[in-house]
């Protein structure tokens, strides 16, 4: 197959059919199609509506605490002895991660569409917490589907969701992780399509979800770009973010895609290594297929059956990835690299010790890659890492890995 010609801009997708090249699309049951078309129409109206923008802006500022800081990580920079490392502090947002950006946008869409009930899927529980939060704030009943394995390893977030008034439904199918939670959320949606809004947490699923989630998350990159220009007077040399479904990554990357001198690196969960099946590196070790409404890189066997991946990080434990990332991979604009569980764990501990910041295990994957490349870079070079969430939720997992009891 010939490589497609380099586009003039990497920021124009998706096309009218919801495709990024061969990726994306609307692979859903007919029951959902009318609703998805309605969502697309509402989204198209909302994104150019000044009132919608103003309401979202107001909530982002006063409720979520935006803009998030771009912080010069001096301790880590000194420790690594190379390029300057900056953290985009999404961990400081209300609810403790970037997920609130998307949830605020989508709850306003749900309101415009007159929906009465919110459902969501969650892996690490960050999106579940953010969904439960906006549902509480706007007075909607909320059901969160969460894999049973994840319910066990992310218990603090499960309790937070319950406090916020959401019902957490554990899903025992498969390995009981994000993929299975998404299946169950889709089954709920198809059953309750009339009154229910499906608040998808990542930049994946049927069109227009990958686009609208990206647009709500692009505030990360838009701010970071302006902040680095102000703080350093120039663009960064490298930006790095972890990729599960890829919403924090596409949010950081998208505003930089046409800055051709900025190297962009997405980090996949390498789990226990890419030789076996215990990883979630769909773009490094999978192939294109169709799942959950879109075509994208997937971990699958020769018969097209989807494999259960593995990652220490529940938020990266998904055998697919958002379709725009698949397209950015194939077009060569973004480089995707795996980071192992152990490397992420080391980054988690180091960041905690030298920066006094406990990063989410997801974000620790991105930091781990910075630890590899920063020492080899010049001191006047700049690297921005997306610190997508805080790691309080992960202390049990980390204690387990380190053989400690808490």
């Amino acid at each position, binding site marked *: 197959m010939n490589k497609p010609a380099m586009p003039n801009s990497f920021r124009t997708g998706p096309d009218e059919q919801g495709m990024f090249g061969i990726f994306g*699309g609307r692979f859903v*049951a007919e029951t959902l199609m009318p609703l998805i078309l309605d969502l697309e129409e509402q989204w198209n109206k909302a994104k150019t509506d000044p009132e919608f923008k103003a309401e979202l802006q107001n909530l982002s500022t006063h409720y979520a605490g935006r803009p998030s800081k771009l912080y010069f990580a001096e301790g880590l920079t000194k420790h690594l002895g190379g390029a300057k490392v900056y953290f985009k502090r999404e961990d400081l947002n209300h609810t403790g991660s970037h997920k609130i950006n998307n949830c605020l946008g989508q709850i306003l869409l749900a309101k415009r569409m007159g929906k009465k009930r919110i459902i969501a899927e969650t892996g690490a529980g960050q999106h579940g917490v953010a969904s439960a939060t906006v549902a509480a704030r706007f007075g909607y009943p909320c059901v969160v589907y969460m894999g049973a394995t994840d319910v066990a390893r992310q218990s603090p977030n499960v309790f937070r969701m319950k406090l916020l008034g959401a019902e957490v439904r554990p899903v025992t199918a498969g390995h009981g992780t994000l993929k299975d939670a998404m299946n169950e959320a889709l089954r709920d949606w198809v059953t309750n399509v009339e009154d229910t809004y499906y608040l998808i947490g990542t930049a994946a699923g049927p069109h227009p979800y990958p686009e609208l989630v990206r647009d709500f998350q692009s505030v990360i990159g838009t701010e970071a770009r302006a902040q680095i220009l102000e703080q350093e007077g120039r663009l960064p040399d490298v930006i790095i973010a972890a990729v599960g479904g890829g919403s924090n990554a596409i949010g950081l990357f998208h505003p930089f895609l046409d800055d051709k001198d900025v190297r962009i690196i997405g980090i996949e969960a390498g789990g226990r290594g890419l030789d076996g099946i215990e990883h979630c590196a769909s773009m490094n070790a999978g192939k294109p297929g169709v799942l959950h*409404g879109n075509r994208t890189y997937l971990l699958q066997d020769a018969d097209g059956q989807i494999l259960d991946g593995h990652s220490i990080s529940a938020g990266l434990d998904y055998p697919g990835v958002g379709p725009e990332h698949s397209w950015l991979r194939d077009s060569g604009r973004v480089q995707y690299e795996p980071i192992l569980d152990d490397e992420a764990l080391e980054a988690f501990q180091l960041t905690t010790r030298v920066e006094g910041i406990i990063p989410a295990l997801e974000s620790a994957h991105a930091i781990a890659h910075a630890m590899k490349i920063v020492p080899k870079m010049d001191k006047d070079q700049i690297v921005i890492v997306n610190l997508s969430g805080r790691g309080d939720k992960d202390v049990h997992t980390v204690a387990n890995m380190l053989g400690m009891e808490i």
Partner: protein
Amino acid sequence: MMTTRIDRRMAKLKAEGRPALVTYFMGGDPDYDTALAIMKALPGAGSDVIELGMPFSDPMADGPAIQAAGLRALKGGQTLAKTLKLASEFRAGDDETPIVLMGYYNPIYIYGVDRFLADAKASGIDGLIVVDLPPEMDEELCIPALKAGVNFIRLATPTTDDKRLPKVLENTSGFVYYVSMTGITGSALADTAKVSAAVRRIKGHTALPVCVGFGVKTAEQARVIGASADGVVVGTAIVNAIANVLGPKGEKTADPAEAVATLVSGLAQGVRSARLAAAE
């Protein structure tokens, strides 16, 4: 497009003045040989059209019974290639009963669309129902299938309104599958009066037969639905009949083919009395 076994079978039943009994079961559940025995028993028990399930790891539109059937089949080593082989072995002994493959797109996409259509045709497959390919994605498989002479049977649902129906019907052939409710397979049957009204609504847009599925489990339900529909689809009840004769470790406590045949015979009686009831 040339007429298929589906067209011929539906025309024949129309002439007989009764609806079709369309039976779904999962290819390879609980293993290949048993599934072949089940399939061979279906026409004799009164099945008019066979829907052969292609197992998929992530069946988003299916309830617990069909999810479990798919997992049993995959655990038993079923693949898309083996499901095609199942059809072709059946076809060697029955050249009349239409076979419709039903499932999800990814295994077909990975098999390769052109290769799949050629092999499906050679295996005696007459139609396809692919849950996650709405008309918006027709270029993927629907159009190539029609060119290859394989019916592409579309699902219409309660959310498919009059504005959207023409788009759904545009490239549909064989029959239209009306999903009786917004929901997953195996849920409780919707209000039958509403279902009949929906069937009439669809018939106002197409000359194709309309078969109704999702929620039909008993002979009585088959009779009531069959009074207005051109066909009644039963799936979960059949899959459950298989599950019911499997022990906790998957061992057979009775003959699955016999259990399915008994159930299907009862459903066939329901379907055959449908128009009598309607005429009363």
